[in-house]
């Protein structure tokens, strides 16, 4: 069965500092990988995705993520955080085959940005 671990429940960074949110997954084959962001009381918005090819993927809002097969990781990064980035971030893995296509989510990392 697939699983996702986000080891950091809560992270605080200063505005303008760099950010890295960790995500480790467990899956028997090459998965689909996603990062979503959720503002308080809102739905989830897709930041970026990895299906295949280049292991460094670019997303919206200046975010990027790198797929490292050897480490089973898909960490999210941003070189300079803005106050508006404060939100909860979810990593998710999906199966690369037909079927229900539901995603398995990590428990999330809450990002706080200090001025």
């Amino acid at each position, binding site marked *: 069965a697939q699983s996702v671990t986000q080891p950091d429940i809560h992270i605080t960074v200063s505005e303008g500092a760099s950010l890295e949110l960790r995500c480790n997954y467990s899956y028997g084959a090459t998965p*689909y990988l*996603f990062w*979503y962001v959720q503002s308080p*009381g*809102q*739905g*989830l*918005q*897709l930041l970026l*995705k990895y*299906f295949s090819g280049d292991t460094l993927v670019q997303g919206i809002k200046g975010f990027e993520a790198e797929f490292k097969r050897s480490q089973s990781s898909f960490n999210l990064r941003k070189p300079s955080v803005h106050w508006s980035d404060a939100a909860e971030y*979810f990593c*998710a893995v*999906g199966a*690369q085959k*037909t079927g*229900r*296509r*539901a*995603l*398995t*989510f*990590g*428990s*999330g990392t809450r990002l706080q940005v200090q001025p």
Partner: protein
Amino acid sequence: SQTIHQWPATLVQPVGSPLSLECTVEGTSNPNLYWYRQAAGRGLQLLFYSVGIGQISSEVPQNLSASRPQDRQFILSSKKLLLSDSGFYLCAWTEEQGPIQFFGPGTRLTVL
């Protein structure tokens, strides 16, 4: 373009009362539809998914049920709510052959 709606946005219900949450998708056909629940401070738990009208799969045994009366409508129901049913309910859809899930704005349910 495609949009997904959830209704209502917030709901406060007494224990033992019925529940009906609605999700509708516009701008696509034959979507796969999903209901997730997000408890406070936790990730998303898949409750139900549907690959077509009248086709419902349940992921976890619980007090809830789902129905899909139309291609782009997905309903989450309960006959008698429990306190543990409180949470944030999210509906999502994917294209029939696509893996990317798009989420609705959610419904905040509080059971008192």
